[in-house]
């Protein structure tokens, strides 16, 4: 089984426990994820669990990261 090392940014500093992502696994192995945070999205991608829905969101994540870098270098 592939393991994922926790990156520093994946340590969630939640204001309250309601910010926790729910992951449910059906008896047939399907995984349901509700309230996906950024670290959870990255973890799913690292694990290779990404279906098309995860892939589309990872692309959005990369775009946001690129925009943030651009903004930071502009200031």
């Amino acid at each position: 089984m592939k393991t994922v090392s926790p990156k520093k940014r994946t340590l969630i500093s939640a204001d309250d426990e309601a910010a926790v992502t729910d992951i449910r696994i059906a008896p047939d192995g399907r995984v349901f994820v509700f309230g996906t945070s950024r670290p959870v999205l990255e973890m799913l991608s690292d694990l290779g669990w990404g279906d098309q829905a995860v892939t589309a969101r990872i692309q959005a994540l990369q775009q946001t990261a690129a925009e943030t870098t651009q903004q930071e270098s502009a200031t």
Partner: protein
Amino acid sequence: MRLPNFEEPGQWHLAHCQLCEHRCLANRSAGERGPCQALTEARVFRQRVEWGEESELIPSHLFYLSGCDLRCAFCIAEANAFDPLRGTVLTADFLRQVIPKGRAQGAKNIQWVGGEPTIHIPSILSAMAGIDDLPPVVWKSDFYGTPEAFELLDGVVSVFVPDFKFGNDECAQRIAGVSRYFEVVTRNLRLAAQQADVIVRHLLLPEHWDCCFVPICEWLLREMPTVKLSLRDGYLPMWQARQHADLSQLLKPGIGDRAREWATQLGLNVIR
């Protein structure tokens, strides 16, 4: 952003509520409760930045409000959705504290979800009016509100995300306990499309392909052929779903992809 003069109509609704199509006229200011059980305060039972929404909305800062005008047997928020006394009271001060935190995590909008935000429009508008640099507003709703409620949102909401759950009144009555569902939701879809961008969401339900999924797609094709359609396949038999034989099961594997392919071939604008 224009925040309209909501105070007067908002207060009026809290004294003779007609925010949703139950139109129960409850005097919420005096402690009367209609089918939604809400009084005058809105409460947030969860708020967080999420990445599971449609790609064009993420990252989105979601505010989950307790209380709802529908009683969907499969509600994933379970008791939180139906008890409007759960959570932190929504105020401008609360928003002032949490919106910057969402922004720091990259959130490009705030999104009101439920329960059902429509039943709390006066409180939401009042809290947002106290914020100087309000992010774009996304409104995820069951679309069982009245035209009067939508009028209060005109100019406030950037993107509506209607949850188009049922393709006929029988399923809506049996599963969510509401009447005239199809007529109300389709009327509101037309209203919303005149006010802002719209992303129609449909959660696929087990054994509701012919009665709900297909009629919804066909209506959209006829009436709003270019609207964005997001098909969700994360159904789980939560809350009281086990009281209904059809809702007690998971979706068949692959049904989400099949539905997206079918809707795309029909000519709809299916998005992820």
